[in-house]
């Protein structure tokens, strides 16, 4: 048991620490949701050359607080056709795993809820639990839009979970441990994991975008085709829990994982001298990724569901499997030397980034040729 500071009895300190950790996690989620929604709207506005929220408070800072108050005071309409057991369980099932993921996020040396031996496996496990809530929400609404949206979202989430896990396994091959604290401690210097296995990072990043329902994979928000997906029948605070809290909490968690596994977590100048400085570095790195997510949202168009699924199963999973195989073989062949692995990974990354446009060009050509031959057959004229 960890002895407490100021001579506090270890047993009391254990409980006190739990209360602090829990308070911090919930505070982080609430705060994160409020702040991130504000940031999201402001950044979108700046990128689209408009002002964004500016009425409530200075720079519109209090806008999201007002929104939250409105959501809490809003009537929760429960349609008469729903399946109550599932409908009421879904918000809990979506929120709880997200909250529980915060136990293992390493903010700074010593500032971590619980350093589990199986940290990454634990996070993977919790990630897979969220699907359940979404399928239940879609099904329980007894609404055609919600059901189709739930099926789509579930298909998307379960599909992209596979490349996500495979990328993490590739990282574990190099690191040799699942504990997030040990992973962070293994990358003290400026040479972090991103220089060794960049391709795994890119595939993880893409899969994480899909796992958190962010653009270009934000099908639940495809208003023009499926209304609001599995959230169609949800309103008021139930909607707020399902979407606002959980989505931004999940974004924070995956960005935290990226920071810890590929970018050295809390490590940065001055951490050896003063450990709590790690919180600053960790937060800065995590928010950099969150901002990247928002940038992507302002840049890329949304994918269609069939493109999304075939991209996952026909491109991303084969690429991650190939990367896993190459990394493992090189590690065994060179006795743990990381340089060949890094070289191979950069080459594969270059091929991946160049190969996708080339593949698109080829597909475009074949589609055009097919259309042309069809027109030729229809009109009887060679085009």
């Amino acid at each position: 048991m960890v002895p407490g500071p100021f001579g506090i009895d270890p047993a009391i300190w254990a409980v006190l620490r739990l209360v602090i950790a829990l308070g911090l996690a919930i505070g982080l989620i609430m705060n994160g949701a409020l702040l991130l929604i504000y940031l999201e709207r402001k950044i979108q506005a700046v990128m689209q050359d408009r002002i964004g929220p500016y009425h409530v408070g200075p720079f519109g800072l209090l806008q999201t607080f007002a929104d939250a108050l409105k959501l809490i005071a809003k009537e929760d309409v429960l349609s008469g056709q729903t399946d109550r057991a599932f409908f009421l369980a879904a918000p809990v099932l979506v929120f709880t795993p997200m909250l529980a993921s915060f136990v293992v996020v390493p903010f700074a040396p010593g500032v971590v809820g619980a350093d589990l031996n199986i940290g990454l496996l634990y996070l993977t496990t919790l990630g897979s639990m969220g699907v359940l809530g979404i399928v239940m929400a879609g099904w329980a609404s007894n609404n055609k839009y919600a059901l189709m949206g739930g099926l789509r979202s579930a298909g998307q989430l379960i599909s992209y979970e596979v490349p996500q896990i495979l990328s993490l396994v590739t990282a574990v091959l190099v690191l040799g441990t699942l504990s997030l604290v040990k992973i962070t401690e293994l990358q003290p210097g400026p040479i972090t994991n991103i220089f060794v296995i960049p391709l795994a990072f890119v595939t993880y990043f893409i899969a994480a975008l899909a796992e958190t329902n962010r653009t270009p994979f934000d099908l639940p928000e495809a208003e023009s085709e499926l209304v609001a997906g599995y959230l169609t029948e949800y309103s008021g605070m139930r909607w707020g829990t399902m979407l606002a809290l959980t989505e931004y909490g999940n974004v924070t968690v995956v960005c935290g994982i990226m920071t810890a596994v590929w970018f050295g977590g809390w490590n940065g100048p001055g951490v050896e001298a003063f450990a709590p400085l790690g919180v600053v570095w960790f937060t800065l790195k995590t928010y950099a990724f969150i901002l990247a997510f928002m940038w992507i949202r302002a840049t890329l168009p949304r994918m269609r569901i069939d493109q999304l699924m075939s991209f996952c199963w026909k491109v991303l999973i084969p690429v991650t499997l190939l990367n896993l195989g190459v990394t493992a073989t090189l590690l065994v062949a060179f006795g743990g030397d990381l340089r060949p692995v890094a070289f191979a990974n950069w080459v594969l990354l270059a091929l991946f980034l160049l190969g996708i446009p080339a593949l698109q060009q080829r597909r475009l050509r074949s589609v055009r040729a097919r259309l042309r031959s069809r027109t030729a057959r229809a009109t009887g004229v060679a085009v």
Partner: protein
Amino acid sequence: MPDYSLSYFYVFTFFGAGAIFVTALLTLSNLVQPKRSTPEKLTTYESGEEPVGQAWGRYPSHFYVFALLFVVFDVEVIFLFPWAVLFRQLGWYGLVEMGIFILILVAGLFYAWRKDALTWY
């Protein structure tokens, strides 16, 4: 032993706290919100039309194929994680074992691909 118990005590508490937090939040919301339900509010949303029948019914089963493939790859994961952690000790032996394992599963993926089961309509 205390370290293990303490860590998982935290995990248990976080799970419990998550459920309690959501319930409390929704109860709070339930207490302050107005409740004026009308027959129109109770109907299912179908873009403003009168809803036709129920949504529950038969759906094309190709959705099922994706869930199936996911389950297979999820099962693969429970072998991949132990292998990745113990990878250095296992060496070539473990690599070949895992290589055969993954190749057999990839054969299944390839079968699904050829059967056109990887296409979402």
